[in-house]
């Protein structure tokens, strides 16, 4: 059985104009040891679907699904307390803005140890040792000194490393990374992606990578889900996605990449809308 199994997931937000569906009947699964990329443009529902899995959506959102199971446990029927036990330990998530994701008022060490305090029964000294171990693992130099640093004293890339340290503190089986490198320079992006893939391989985690960057997909993913407007357009292995994309939307997306341009014109949005209609049909 898959580590994460979601069937017919829909997420609706109440608005003045009635319910708005950000995710419409999406099936997805992730296996242990797998890197699953979820690709889509803004408004495709890729982040909302994963926030629903993590239980991080605001109360205004209505989440419905035929099944939403993590390691065989139905996430929809868990009590809030059970949810909290799961989040940050067995399943964890990192976000696009590393600097904004960290609390500016507390040291890096405190924020890493906070997760350990919540989810393990390690003593103070053991927590500190584990925090140092984690910072070493994510490649932060002089980790003992860094424990006392505040987020503003670190660069964006280092903050993302700290976020990864926090997320992997309790050896999660599922790590969801929502555009983890979008705010970073390409050379830093490469380091962060390499770090995520190394941790993923070492721990045999399932890594769900939400991204809009087809290059990142090509270099990291095992399997790819393409979303558009809340619907799943394609679910395939990475090679097939680029070699012979089945959905018209995926083909439109790939042809809009400047590197695939034929001549000086790129395909326009009407190509997209039409392709998406095709894909939905």
């Amino acid at each position: 059985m898959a580590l994460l199994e979601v069937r017919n997931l829909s997420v609706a937000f109440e608005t003045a104009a009635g319910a708005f569906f950000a995710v419409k009947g999406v099936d997805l699964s992730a296996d242990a040891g797998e890197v699953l990329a979820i690709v889509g443009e803004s408004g495709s529902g890729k982040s909302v679907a994963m926030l629903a899995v993590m239980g991080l959506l605001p109360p205004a959102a209505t989440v419905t699904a035929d099944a939403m199971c993590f390691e065989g446990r139905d996430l929809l029927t868990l009590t809030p307390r059970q949810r909290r036990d799961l989040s940050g330990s067995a399943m964890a998530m990192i976000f696009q803005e590393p600097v904004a994701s960290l609390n500016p008022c507390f040291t890096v060490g405190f924020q890493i140890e906070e997760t350990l305090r919540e989810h393990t029964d390690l003593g103070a000294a053991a927590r500190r040792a584990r925090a140092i171990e984690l910072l070493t693992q994510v490649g932060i130099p002089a980790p003992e000194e860094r424990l006392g640093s505040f987020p503003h004293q670190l660069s964006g890339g280092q903050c993302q490393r700290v976020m990864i340290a926090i997320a992997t503190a309790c050896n999660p089986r599922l790590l969801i990374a929502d555009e983890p490198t979008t705010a970073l320079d390409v050379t830093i992006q490469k380091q962060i992606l390499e770090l995520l893939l190394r941790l993923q391989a070492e721990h045999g985690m399932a890594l769900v990578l939400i991204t809009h960057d087809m290059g990142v997909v090509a270099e990291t993913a095992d399997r790819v889900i393409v979303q558009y407007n809340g619907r799943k357009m394609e679910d395939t292995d990475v090679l097939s996605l680029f070699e012979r994309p089945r959905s018209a939307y995926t083909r439109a997306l790939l042809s809009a990449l400047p590197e695939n341009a034929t001549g000086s014109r790129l395909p326009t949005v009407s190509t997209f809308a039409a392709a998406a209609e095709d894909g939905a049909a």
Partner: protein
Amino acid sequence: MTDAPVLETRGIVRDYVSGGLFGGSRTLRALKGIDLRVERGKTLAVVGESGCGKSTLARIITLIDAPTAGELLIEGQPVDVARTGVPAELRRKVQIVFQNPYGSLNPRQKIGDVLAEPLKLNTPLSASARRDRAMEMLLKVGLRPEHFNRYPHMFSGGQRQRIAIARAVMTSPELLVLDEPVSALDLSVQAQILNLLQDLQDELRLTYVFISHDLSVVRHVADDVMVMNLGEAVEYRSRDAIFAAPEHPYTRKLFAATPRIDLPSIRDRVTRKAAMPRATRSGRAR
């Protein structure tokens, strides 16, 4: 005059001084002598990571900031922002488009007024003539007449970027500095905006300085490419030359770090992972 490049800089240096008052002040040299030359109708792409000085360069080219040293020439005419200021005619000739179109549009200004404002400041045109020109430009950048009286928040990111471009082109500039114009946009919208920029360049013979960190976009739009690192132009050659054989180690590092879609390497990676024993792949998690 027609022979002079639209933009030329010679040894542009820019220092930022911090501290002072008490104790020592520190000087940061953001630009360390930049030479560049862009002919009419061409696009120079400036590539680099955060802190490399590309935005400082943009501010100097758009006459917002004065260089600490060096010469800036627009259409062959030397400009000294610090000493003699900028003649109004020159302000008209050089315009800029920023990365975040929402941040660069006044939320309380209707789009028609956004577009007409540069004319009010830079031309003697009457109010009705300004309105006509604004409406004409609105249509040219692919927006509709009913958008004229709407506010910025009523538009999508791509539409806002169209507005920002339209505003920049209103004064019939010669030189347009585009500071990461498509970085905040989705792929499909990015494609539209790149097409629009291409059309405007062809139609109006615009000269572009295109600042970007995205190499695939740069490869698509540029005639020449300048790679910057720590305030220096480490490599500055034609697009084809630089992409065929990057020479400087930093350029190579940048190229190598950029994720690419390359079927043989995907195949290679997938095969390698499949060959790994299952135990290693699922690790100690089970």
